[in-house]
């Protein structure tokens, strides 16, 4: 054996044995002697800069490894200690470990080397390490090194599988090669043969440990490229297992030795390439060994890898989508690989496996589900879905072979399969199972989901580049299903209660799967409706239920958007939602979908704060739908018709956007109960009111009267700006003029505009009605301006008012308070005998007791009035205090009750 082993590295360089007196040296390009470290620095910088420019991609890892190999070899040749060691018969081998051993060095990877001696470690060994390694440290390399003899290696390998795996990666760099071979032989003989099963278990445990520590890189938005599930470590596991179980020496052996099919191996290389490239750029950009692909780097890496922004999605989204797909593929390959090792021993294979037929075409072997004959699938394609269903129901995994079969057959799925009654029914069965998520997840992994639902392909790996979404769209859809299926474990019991109320939740589950299927740019909910409709049509799905699903897809953001962007104390926002939603069952499904969708989006999309708002909206809409007359289909239709007519009547007279601004503050009840023509008229009045402020200090107001000859009554319309007590002022002024109110609709708009429409009896002096109306108008104006004190004037004329009272049997008045029907108002119903001034008495009493009337419906039947007032306290909230309510009731009863005869 020569002093220094002359070795070939792919035939590139061959170093002559060094001559101690004339140490060999190479000349740099400029003819100067360059120390190995200087040469390494220069060539490394050149390599990195070429890499950054995108000039070398395929071979970067190997070229970089090669540079370090060259450095070590040259340093060995220059090393005085090295020569001395060989001269004193203390041969050693320099061995690369870990990623350096695998020739997978990324830009800032740790470089692990070992100086290996046969038995005793000489005292000068550390001096050798210093000579070789110090220059690297000085250059900023991260180094790990060990000086061991063969026995150390074996002992450590048996104690610590981390050391063992680094030795599985061992690669000879220089020195005495038989030593290295000796080590390999010993490891095979003394560790591998004894520990293979324990090692396999360790791999399994460390994989689950990685899941806990680094998560699943195949969907996390900041994946850990090395340790995350689906990361490079998964690939290393395969290499190590292959080395342990069939002595694979190089990665290609995975295919050569039949552990992976040709296609699987090619896929693996392609996927690893992307992960490695991303990792190298990540190292360069972060300037250190950083394997967590943080947001801040993703955009630049995507650019460097040649991804470009497109109108429908960003470069970074495209990059992350492909990266996730690659990592998912590595993950799934590793899983399959892990489950197939150790291979069954010959005797175990011959022993009669525990076999059970499950359903025609499927069987259970050694607690795994398998196809009896894959060719059965040709005659019964539904088996492809059924095997997943049975697997979930029985709790046994698919066999490795079955997974392969599924993967292969996935390509054969055609329109016939997708529309077949059997397969569709099986799919629906699956979606209704408690384990639906697990099944879909498996189907997703094996490509079956996108084969069955090609619409899924476009969104499968689509990333949304923001801090909001944690999963790519496809996975997010599955997670949404998962949250719905896991409702029983939620602390919020309301959710489960709601689910139990839904007689047929199937549309909800399908909507959860499809809700983001249109996510290819803007307006994804609308786009999703078209795509979902296409799927459901193919399914031959029930027409009525189709509507439910399409509704949920279309409006899956409605509740969150309303809850965060609208005022939930504004009844109109709630009523608009109620009208869009239409019925209670839909609302319940929409609420659950909203919750699951938000939860599956990520922690930033859902927290107690948002939950609070959405829940508040849910209950308010629920109450409107359950109790209100405001959201019936009839009401919805009527309002839409009215709005349409108003727009048509005013078309050409004003800009649609201006009209919208005017329509916006109108209260829902006003829009429901007022004919289009009158709305236009009211808009005219309001425009006039705003133009001529007669007296800026007084309340602007407008009053007009119209005789309804057929009904022997008049219609009085008063518009003004709301303030507490306004209604009672109007009622009082009418009473002052002996005008009896038969009915009234008073509306308060969100901007404080009031529009009150009264139907009243003929004035006492029908001949000269106009004069009376003129007087009334003037008095009302004076009242508004504070020039006329109503209570005094009414007191003065109490005599005629008593005379005017009918003599019919007087029934005691009744007051009913309803605080349940509305989330926004306290409803007060008053039943009493009618008399002129009654309404004034009621409304004044309400005003004096701190109740603001927002809506009132006054109706007279024969001599009895039945009035409903929607009131709020002066804070704008429904009246909640029991004392306050009691006080209002008492005051009303005494205001309308039998009066003490006064004045005679």
């Amino acid at each position, binding site marked *: 054996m020569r002093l220094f082993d002359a070795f070939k590295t792919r035939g590139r360089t061959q170093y002559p044995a060094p001559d101690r007196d004339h140490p060999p040296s190479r000349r740099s390009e400029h003819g100067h002697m360059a120390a190995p470290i200087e040469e390494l620095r220069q060539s490394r910088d050149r390599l990195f800069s070429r890499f950054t420019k995108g000039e070398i991609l395929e071979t970067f890892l190997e070229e970089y490894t090669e540079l370090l190999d060259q450095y070590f070899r040259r340093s060995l040749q220059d090393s005085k200690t090295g020569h001395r060691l060989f001269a004193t018969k203390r041969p050693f081998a320099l061995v690369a470990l870990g990623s350096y051993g695998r020739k997978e060095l990324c830009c800032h990877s740790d470089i692990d080397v070992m100086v290996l001696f046969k038995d005793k470690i000489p005292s000068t060994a550390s001096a050798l390490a210093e000579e070789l390694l110090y220059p690297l440290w000085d250059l900023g390399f991260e180094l790990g090194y060990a000086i061991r003899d063969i026995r150390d290696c074996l002992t450590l390998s048996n104690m610590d599988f981390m050391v063992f795996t680094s030795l599985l990666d061992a690669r000879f760099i220089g020195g005495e090669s038989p030593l290295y071979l000796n080590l390999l032989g010993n490891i095979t003989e003394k560790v591998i043969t004894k520990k293979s099963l324990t090692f396999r278990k360790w791999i399994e445990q460390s994989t689950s440990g990685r899941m806990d520590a680094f998560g699943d890189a195949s969907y996390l938005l900041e994946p850990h490229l090395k340790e995350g599930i689906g990361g490079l470590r998964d690939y290393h596991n395969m290499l190590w297992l292959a080395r342990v179980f069939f002595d694979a020496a190089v990665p290609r052996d995975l295919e050569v030795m039949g552990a992976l099919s040709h296609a699987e191996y090619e896929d693996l290389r392609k996927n690893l390439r992307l992960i490695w490239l991303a990792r190298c750029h990540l190292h360069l950009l972060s300037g250190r060994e950083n394997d967590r692909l943080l947001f801040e780097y993703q955009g630049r890496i995507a650019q460097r890898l040649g991804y470009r922004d497109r109108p429908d999605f960003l470069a970074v989204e495209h990059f992350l989508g492909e990266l996730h797909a690659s990592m998912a593929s590595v993950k799934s390959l590793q899983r399959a690989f892990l489950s197939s090792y150790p291979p069954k021993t010959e005797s175990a294979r011959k022993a009669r496996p525990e076999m059970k037929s499950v359903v025609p075409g499927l069987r259970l072997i050694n607690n795994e589900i398998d196809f009896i004959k894959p060719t059965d699938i040709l005659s019964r394609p539904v088996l492809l879905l059924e095997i997943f269903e049975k697997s979930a129901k029985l709790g046994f995994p698919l066999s490795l072979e079955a997974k392969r079969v599924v993967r292969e057959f996935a390509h054969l799925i055609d329109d016939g399969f997708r529309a077949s009654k059997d397969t569709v029914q099986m799919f629906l069965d699956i979606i209704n199972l408690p384990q639906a998520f697990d099944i879909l997840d498996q189907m997703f992994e094996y490509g079956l989901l996108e084969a069955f639902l090609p619409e899924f392909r476009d969104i499968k790996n689509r990333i949304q580049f923001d801090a909001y979404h944690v999963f790519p769209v496809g996975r997010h859809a599955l997670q949404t299903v998962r949250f719905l299926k896991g409702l029983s474990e939620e602390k919020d*019991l309301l959710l489960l209660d709601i689910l139990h109320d839904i007689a047929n939740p199937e549309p909800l589950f399908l909507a959860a799967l499809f809700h983001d299927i249109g996510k290819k740019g803007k307006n994804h909910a609308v786009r999703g409706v078209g795509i979902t409709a296409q799927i459901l049509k193919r399914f031959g799905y029930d027409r009525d239920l189709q509507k439910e699903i399409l509704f949920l897809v279309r409006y899956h953001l409605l509740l969150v958007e309303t809850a965060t962007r609208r005022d939930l104390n504004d009844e109109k926002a709630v009523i608009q939602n109620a009208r869009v939603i239409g019925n209670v069952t839909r609302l319940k499904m929409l609420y659950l979908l909203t919750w699951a969708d938000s939860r599956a989006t990520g922690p930033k999309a859902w927290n*107690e704060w948002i939950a609070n708002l959405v829940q508040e909206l849910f209950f308010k809409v629920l109450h409107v739908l359950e109790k209100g007359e405001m959201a019936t289909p009839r009401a919805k239709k009527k309002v839409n018709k009215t709005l349409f007519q108003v727009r048509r009547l005013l078309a050409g007279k004003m800009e649609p956007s201006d009209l919208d601004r005017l329509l916006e503050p109108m209260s829902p009840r006003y829009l429901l109960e007022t004919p289009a023509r009158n709305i236009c008229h009211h808009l005219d009045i309001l425009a006039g009111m705003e133009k001529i402020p007669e007296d800026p200090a007084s309340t602007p107001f407008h009053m007009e009267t119209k005789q309804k000859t057929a009904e022997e009554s008049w219609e009085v319309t008063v518009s003004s700006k709301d303030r507490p007590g306004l209604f009672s002022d109007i009622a009082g002024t009418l009473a002052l003029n002996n005008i009896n109110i038969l009915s009234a609709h008073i509306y308060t708009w969100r901007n404080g505009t009031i529009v009150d429409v009264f139907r009243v009896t003929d004035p006492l002096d029908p001949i000269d009605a106009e004069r009376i109306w003129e007087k009334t108008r003037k008095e009302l104006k004076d009242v508004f301006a504070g020039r006329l004190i109503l209570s005094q004037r009414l007191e003065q004329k109490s005599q005629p008012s008593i005379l005017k009272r009918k003599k019919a049997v007087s029934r005691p008045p009744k007051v009913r308070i309803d605080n349940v029907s509305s989330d926004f108002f306290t409803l007060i119903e008053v039943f009493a005998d009618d008399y002129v001034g009654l309404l004034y008495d009621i409304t004044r009493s309400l005003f004096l007791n701190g109740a603001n009337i927002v809506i009132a419906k006054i109706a007279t039947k024969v001599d009895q009035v039945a009035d409903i007032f929607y009131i709020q306290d002066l804070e704008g909230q429904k009246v909640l205090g029991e004392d306050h309510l009691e006080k209002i009731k008492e005051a009303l009863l005494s205001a309308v009750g039998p009066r003490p005869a006064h004045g005679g």
Partner: protein
Amino acid sequence: MKKIEAIIKPFKLDDIKEGLAGLGVKGLTVTEVKGFGRQRGHREVYRGAEYQVDFVSKVKIEVVLESGLVDDAVRMIQEKARTGQIGDGKIFILAVEQVIRIRTGETGHEAV
């Protein structure tokens, strides 16, 4: 220097943010908060089970500005945050002793 803390309805945030920017306010802090004032939480009954909601979700805005700007800012917030309904929120004005910009060490007006 003064600090304005305003508790507002969540959907009013954008309006107020724009309004403050219009006044030349250069930075503000926004927090999602829960609490109650006159607008209490409430209790809902669903299928016989009671769901007590103790707190109402609101947004808190904090902004530090020159004393001279306070009146305008407060007026603006009040105007924009008002709906006339319950729960429009509150505005607090506090005196600020000192401001330090961490990066540069600037203090006082420079740092606002």
